[in-house]
């Protein structure tokens, strides 16, 4: 049996978060406006107009370049990519060909080939009638394109790269990068081969979630392998992904490689990035917030569990809550205790309230991290027990409030007063004569049951250790 090795390269586009479009001062806000309102003669491609480069868009791409440790271009320019389509009003797209803003770099152990800047096309809708409608609000929105080397070998690795890039773009404030909205779009180039040479490449589009990326790649790998097994040839083509059928389908056979007649755009100035002081690597590095991998390192150093680290990095609002709660606290045990409560109890409450899988959207706990820190202090000072803490947390989550006041109101303050414990122990013994008899015969688990009943009776406000000694002494 032959072994087939899949090779995958990704092309990822991301719409950049800027106020205005790439080459004009029309508003960059394609989702919240009436169709064809954020437009002007420049992004509508009227003759005689002159584009001007959006500095923020350039800065965004350069910051991504610095974050992935790519090489920032010394010289860079924009090119015209010529083709005819209704969504491209000028008859060409302004893109970058020979001199991209960034070359190289690495993310999630995947080498990056290049990152360049271009403009988005208009969006066309085919939902009504036998005609198409075009909305130019998206035409000219700054678009970043990142291309990886063809060195990914599994669907999961591809999915992980996409997720890590999305996290990076959001961390840098460079793009909202929502896959469902098309703010981030992934195309996968897949080939399968049983030799050292790469196989025939197939491009898959319409991937609007990371799950689709993984499923489509897995599907293609299987399809290619089956074709090669039966001695057939793979056709070079572009395929779409049908999410409901879970299949790819042929969209366009590759004719001779398209001639886009690239040439430098004569309307735009060349850029000497090295001569723009604020774009020096040093100055850009200063604008870097804490990057996802730096965050992972910081949390690992504190000694957090890998699962907790994953939560704080991928759901930044929960991570921010943790950071604020532990700010100024140096005792390791306290920090780990807080982390336990946040990752299990608080996240559990969020999931319960908003539904499983939505914790990423509505992640912010509705109370102040400092109030939560006070709750943990109450546990550590043995003023309340963990069972009571969970109840208090649930109340804080629903209605808010100070943990100590809630504890007082609900009788959850720990009672170490011997007489209170004795009273509860006596009640438990009276109400559970059968179990007591079993205990006396030597069944030790019966004791656990009695302690459990006592804890329940006291709503967790007595110390289980003290309760145990009192029960044992009463029964001996």
């Amino acid at each position, binding site marked *: 049996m032959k072994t087939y090795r899949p090779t995958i390269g990704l092309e990822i586009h991301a719409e950049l*978060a*800027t*106020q*205005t479009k790439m*080459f*004009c*001062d029309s*508003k960059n806000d394609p989702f919240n406006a009436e169709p064809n309102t954020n437009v002007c003669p420049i992004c509508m491609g009227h003759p005689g107009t002159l584009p*001007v*480069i*959006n*500095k*923020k868009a*350039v800065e965004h791409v350069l910051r991504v370049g610095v974050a992935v440790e790519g090489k920032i271009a010394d010289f860079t320019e924009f090119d015209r990519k010529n083709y005819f389509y209704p969504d491209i009003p000028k008859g060409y797209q302004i893109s970058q060909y020979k001199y991209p803003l960034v070359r190289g770099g690495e993310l999630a152990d995947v080498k990056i080939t290049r990152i360049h800047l271009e403009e988005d096309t208009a969006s066309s809708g085919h939902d009504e009638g036998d005609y198409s409608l075009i909305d130019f609000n998206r035409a000219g929105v700054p678009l970043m394109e990142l291309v990886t080397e063809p060195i990914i070998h599994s669907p999961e690795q591809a999915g992980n790269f996409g997720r890590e890039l999305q996290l990076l773009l959001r*961390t*840098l*404030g460079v793009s909202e990068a929502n896959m469902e909205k098309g703010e981030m779009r992934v195309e996968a180039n897949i080939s399968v081969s049983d030799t050292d040479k790469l196989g025939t490449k197939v491009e898959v589009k319409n991937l609007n979630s990371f799950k689709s990326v993984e499923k489509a790649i897995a599907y293609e790998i299987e399809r290619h392998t089956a074709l090669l097994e039966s001695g057939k040839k793979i056709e070079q083509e572009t395929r779409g992904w049908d999410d409901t059928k879970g299949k790819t389908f042929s969209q366009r056979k590759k004719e001779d490689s398209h001639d886009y007649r690239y040439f430098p755009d004569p309307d735009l*100035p*060349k*850029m*000497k990035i090295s*001569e*723009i002081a604020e774009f020096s690597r040093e100055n850009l*590095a*200063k*604008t*870097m*917030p*804490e990057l996802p991998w730096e965050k992972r390192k*910081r949390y690992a150093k504190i000694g957090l569990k890998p699962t907790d680290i994953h939560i704080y990095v991928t759901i*930044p609002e929960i991570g*921010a809550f943790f*950071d*604020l709660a532990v*700010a*100024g606290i140096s005792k390791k045990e306290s920090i780990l205790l807080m982390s336990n409560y946040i990752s299990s109890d608080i996240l559990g409450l969020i999931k319960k309230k908003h539904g499983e899988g939505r914790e990423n959207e509505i992640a912010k706990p509705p109370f*102040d991290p400092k109030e939560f820190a006070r709750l943990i202090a109450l546990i550590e000072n043995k003023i309340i027990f963990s069972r009571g803490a969970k109840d208090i947390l649930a109340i804080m989550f629903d209605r808010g409030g100070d943990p100590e006041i809630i504890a007082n109101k609900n009788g959850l303050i720990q009672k170490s007063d011997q007489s209170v414990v004795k009273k509860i122990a006596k009640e438990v013994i009276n109400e559970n004569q059968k179990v007591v008899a079993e205990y006396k015969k030597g069944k030790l688990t019966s004791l656990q049951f009695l302690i459990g009943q006592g804890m329940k009776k006291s709503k967790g406000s007595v110390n289980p250790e003290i309760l145990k000694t009192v029960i044992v002494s009463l029964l001996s």
Partner: protein
Amino acid sequence: MKKGFLFIFIFIVFVTLVVFIYQTNFQTEKKFEMPVANDPYKHAEVTINGKVFDAYVSDTEKLREKGLSGLSSIENNEVMLFVLPNSDMYGFWMKDMFFAIDILWLDDNFEVVSFKKNVSPDTFPKIFFPKKPAKYVIELKSGTLTKLVLKDHDKISITGGK
């Protein structure tokens, strides 16, 4: 004589050409005003050494926690004014910030008790504390305090708070 004239002419043409090629004229983004209903901030006027700033007032826990994080920059004439619940040693960090700032701590008499210049995002998770308890904190675009030649004990005027 004629040669000298020609030389100057060529020189000028050359200089103009160089400037044309290498001085990239960027589009600086037009700022779209937030519709009044969407602006969660009260505004105040802050005057530092004669220069007037438009202050976004952060006077709730939620606004203070967010601060300027997530914004790509602020205008030269904009600052953020934090009104703290009481006069205390409140620390500030650069979590999720994208640009460098100057930080100014004031006591209840609007007198400068402490300041820190050019604090950049890559300083996170370092926390910056004032030298003395402060009731107000002002965050400005990095470099502003150097331009204004600010010192400890300078008085800042704050008016308004619509």
